[in-house]
């Protein structure tokens, strides 16, 4: 029993060791309307610039804390990896709200208020959203963009009906291109034929189209058109830094994208109202949020200062597949606008 006690205490002690490097390394929770949502705050505060990262559907804040984020962006800025309401390690008690997207946007504004309270009213805040996070970040800006110095929309699903409608046609375009290149001709032909049979305007085609998108991604990776990006560091973040069971169960019960789909949620009619400097980055091979969604968002947004980049070797995660270029564009954008 003595050995067991010693072993247990040693484990607890090692888990509590904190190395002070002078940089910010905090885990703070934001309590707002029944939810306690963790924000992992890491980086160098010297430039007084904070970058809030909003993850995509079924993901979690720390999923971004590998590769270029931890090795580069945190050297220049403070990056805030946020677990959204009902996602990953966020907890609490609350009833299902009538307008979940609106409430989650309020959560992001609450996070911004907490960051200003804790780190100073004068900090520069940039808002980055990936995929579902792109929609959420846009919805946040439509509530109050005065809190932020810029918006970075990464493969953002700012128009759910448009993304749903164009997913099949994007798969078709990629299939034709790959057949012309002689890559997995049989498989791409089969995918193309199956897409042909689906009517994107019908609800029943939604899941089958997503399954075809998954097959398309598999082929792009297998034929090495796109480099696979699963790293040990990312797995460690998913399994050790995060709690995979909590994350998976929370995702099972709380799916904001499903809510947004039911509402036919689209920011397009109101994007003119966003006048912040904006950087948009999309992947050429993205079959989750097709390029057309980015093109419409770029056209419609009201910002005078706006840039869009299409990453040629990317499916849906430009920060993973073309990390160096991603950081270069993000750093340039922040330096120009902070």
């Amino acid at each position, binding site marked *: *029993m003595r050995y*067991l006690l010693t072993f*247990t205490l040693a484990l607890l002690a090692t888990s509590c060791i904190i190395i002070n490097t002078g940089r910010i390394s*905090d885990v703070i929770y934001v309590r707002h*309307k029944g939810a306690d949502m*963790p924000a992992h705050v890491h980086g160098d505060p010297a430039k007084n610039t904070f970058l809030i990262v909003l993850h995509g559907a079924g993901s979690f804040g720390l999923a971004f804390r590998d590769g270029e984020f931890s090795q580069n962006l945190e050297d220049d800025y403070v990056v805030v990896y946020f677990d959204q309401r009902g996602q990953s390690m966020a907890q609490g008690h609350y009833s299902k709200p009538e307008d979940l997207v609106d409430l989650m946007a309020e959560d992001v504004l609450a996070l911004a*208020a907490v960051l200003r309270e804790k780190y100073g009213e004068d900090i520069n805040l940039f808002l980055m959203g990936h995929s579902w996070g792109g929609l959420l970040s846009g919805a946040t800006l439509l509530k109050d963009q005065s809190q932020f110095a810029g918006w970075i929309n990464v493969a953002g699903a700012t128009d759910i009906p448009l993304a749903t409608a164009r997913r099949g046609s994007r798969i078709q375009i990629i299939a034709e291109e790959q057949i012309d290149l002689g890559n997995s001709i049989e498989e791409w032909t089969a995918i193309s034929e199956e897409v042909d049979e689906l009517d994107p305007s019908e609800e029943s085609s939604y899941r089958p189209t997503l399954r075809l998108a998954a097959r398309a991604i598999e082929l792009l990776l297998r034929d090495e058109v796109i480099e696979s990006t699963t790293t040990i560091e990312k797995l460690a973040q998913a399994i050790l830094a995060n709690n995979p069971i909590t994350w998976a169960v929370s995702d099972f019960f709380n799916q904001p994208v499903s809510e947004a789909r039911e509402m036919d949620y689209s920011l397009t009619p109101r994007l003119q109202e966003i006048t912040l400097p904006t950087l948009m980055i999309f992947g050429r091979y993205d079959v989750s949020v097709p390029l057309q969604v980015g093109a419409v968002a770029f056209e419609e947004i009201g910002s005078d200062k706006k840039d869009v980049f299409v990453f040629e070797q990317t499916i849906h995660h430009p920060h993973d597949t073309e990390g160096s270029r991603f950081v270069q564009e993000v750093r340039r954008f922040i330096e120009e606008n902070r």
Partner: protein
Amino acid sequence: MIRSLVCSAILALIVGSMLMNSPLSAQNRMLELTYSGNNLWNPGFRLAIVQDWKEEKTSTLLGKERSTSWSKMITAGLYHDVESHTGFYIQAGALYRNVGEKGWFFDAELSPLGLYRSFLTETWAVDDNGNVSQVRLPGRTYLAPAAALHLGKAGKREWFVGGRVMTLLPYNTYILPLLMIELGVRSPLTSTK
């Protein structure tokens, strides 16, 4: 926070008094110390008192003698999730044990009474008017029934390994199961006489 502490105290008092009022003697109590890590890598431990409840029965299965018994137990434990929180829980329930001739046993625990309290890192609350304030002793309280299965070797001091599932409810809008991996020992609690 105060409400959850009061609830925990009431639960502890009820179950504690049940154990203390048992007609069985102190020699029939065992102390259990268990490494109980959430998902293995979030370290934790729990302490339990196991009290005989119903007399042991012996039966023969395939020519071999096995004894079965029921105990009641109260458990308090905690684990530390390095990146986010510490969880503390108190539970009460029953333990079924089935022991073979050579002392190898399996047991099954069902603890329907349970409370769990998370202790969060620094927490800031934002109210409906946008006012920000720091929360003292932040965390959330959940109902936390649990079930566990163990395999082990009986003796004066016995050891076991197994798993425990605790369900937090209501958690966000639904529930959350927590999986614990366990390695523990039980020793008799001797009388002070």
